[in-house]
């Protein structure tokens, strides 16, 4: 079987009010890639990720998974292939962590009911990986911000999808769990031969995790390369519109 390929061709997106958010975006990534998407606030990162995950549909252009258009893939198959971590997710009442984890797809949850065991092996493993095993029976509304993020990540890790879209996964995490997440992402991409897209505002996190860097500015794809090239070129200043003082502040750490 040939390598797994995810490709975007000439993506344009405009809102119903005719604001153009994304212009002419093209890229192609192979299995094992961890892509970090950088950009200012409002550059269109989340929108691009939503389009790629099939939640929004592009105004023009195609998303191809292994040369199949995403629109032609059935809804259930698409949901098994792609996982998406939202930037912020509503916490429902009357839900505990285990119940949330079992919300995968309908077919899976049916199998779960038959086995009726106390805590399935997969679950306790995933929970241990993200350091939330002791919170397994806790209500979602009682979790702290970081714990809630880790629960959502654990849910994605359980689904074993081929393509992960993580919209600011490091947002609420502390340093220890951030570093842990870097290891997890690398392991996941290798083990499942998956593609992981990450948006982040944390440059250090991006530097640690990604092997491909791309950047968006005002809806235009301004950079796409191997990570090493990006970091050696020092173009952060231009990308984020920093002036000299800001930059000194950043590098003096």
């Amino acid at each position, binding site marked *: 079987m040939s390598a797994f390929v995810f490709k975007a061709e000439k993506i344009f997106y405009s809102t119903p009010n005719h604001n153009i958010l994304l212009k002419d975006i093209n890229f192609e990534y192979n299995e094992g890639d961890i892509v970090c998407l950088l950009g200012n606030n409002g550059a269109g990162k989340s929108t691009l990720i939503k389009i790629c995950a*099939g939640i929004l549909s592009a105004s023009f252009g195609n998303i191809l998974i292994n040369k199949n258009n995403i629109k032609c893939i059935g809804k259930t198959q*698409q949901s098994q292939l792609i996982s998406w971590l*939202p930037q912020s997710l509503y916490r429902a009442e009357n839900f505990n962590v*285990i119940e949330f984890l*079992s*919300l995968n797809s309908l077919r899976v949850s049916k199998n779960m*009911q038959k086995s009726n065991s106390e805590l399935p092996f997969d679950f306790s493993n995933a929970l241990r990986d993200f350091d939330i095993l002791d919170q397994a029976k806790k209500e979602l509304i009682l979790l702290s911000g970081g714990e809630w993020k880790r629960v959502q990540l654990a849910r994605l890790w359980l689904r074993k999808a081929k393509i992960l879209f993580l919209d600011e996964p490091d947002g609420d995490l502390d340093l220890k769990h951030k570093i842990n997440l870097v290891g997890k992402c690398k392991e996941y991409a290798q083990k499942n031969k998956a593609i992981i897209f990450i948006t982040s505002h944390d440059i250090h996190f991006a530097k640690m995790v990604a092997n491909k860097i791309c950047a968006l500015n005002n809806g235009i794809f301004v950079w796409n390369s191997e990570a090493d090239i990006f970091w050696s070129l020092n173009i952060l200043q231009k990308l984020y519109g920093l002036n000299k003082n800001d930059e000194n502040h950043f590098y003096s750490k």
Partner: protein
Amino acid sequence: MKSNFSIKVFIVYLMLLLISAFFSIYYGSVNISFMQFFSSSSELEDIPSKILELRINSLLQAALVGAILALSGCVLQRVLRNPLADPFILGISSGGTCFLSLSILINYPPLFSIISSQTFIPIKSFHAFIGCIVSFLILFSFRRKIKTVNDEYVYPVIGIIINSFFSAILMMVITIAKPEQLAEIHNLMIGTLQPITFNQIFFFYAMSIFPIIFILRNAKYFDFMIFGDDFSKSLGINSLKIRCISIVMICILVSLVVSTAGSIGFIGLIIPHMIRKIHRFSPFFECILCMQLGAIILINADTLSRSLFSPAQLPLGIFTAILGAPILAFILIRKQV
């Protein structure tokens, strides 16, 4: 994983339902011992058997009305992600009551009595049903015109618009109406079971069975939808479509209820909360429990309203509030977390 079914809980509620049904048949404004029923069952024209028939009719009606109200409250609270949603939030009922009170006010000669369908639908209910359908059409034509991202907030807002418009007209009718018409309109607004025949009950059940089954079949998706449209879409569930279809079905059910019983408040709002506080089940079983508990409470309220101040019959809506409010308050206080 939330369990999908529990036979124990189901049977407990079923027993409660049967006990309430027994009381509902046994008590009423006229006391009849059961011996009288059996002794007179051979002669159908006898008074006790007539009373029995009336009571069974009103029992069946109350059970279905309660079940529908609680079910639609439960579904709307999940689908609109709004804990304050009740069956009347969409403004369906106000259209019904408004049309009905208008018809009482105008009091035109009964044109419809010629039509043979009157054996199935009484004239009053027919007006209410037309009013409900009108507001239902307004709701969906508005929904189509409004382009917005927050789908779940649009429906209640349109509901408020429809509600305020029709209740303004209703207020106008009340100001104009004669005193004897006022009493009738008043009963309607609080909610009372209209006396109906067995044929009409059969029609009522037959109309509501399909929407209820449809909603229950979609119930498994409600747990995903509560986390938001994007989340459910990423799992391959088209939540916009499910929300729209569920609301259509609820509109049909609520129109049926309003046309036979007016707008009985409180049941649809309170019972889903009670079920959610007491139990922890998947949405499918939650819907079923809501229907059972709704039927139980409405049957008891009906019994009380018939027997407590007999021979006077109080409006049913008063009792649902009197019964429901303290129970919910009690559960909220007792429940930790």
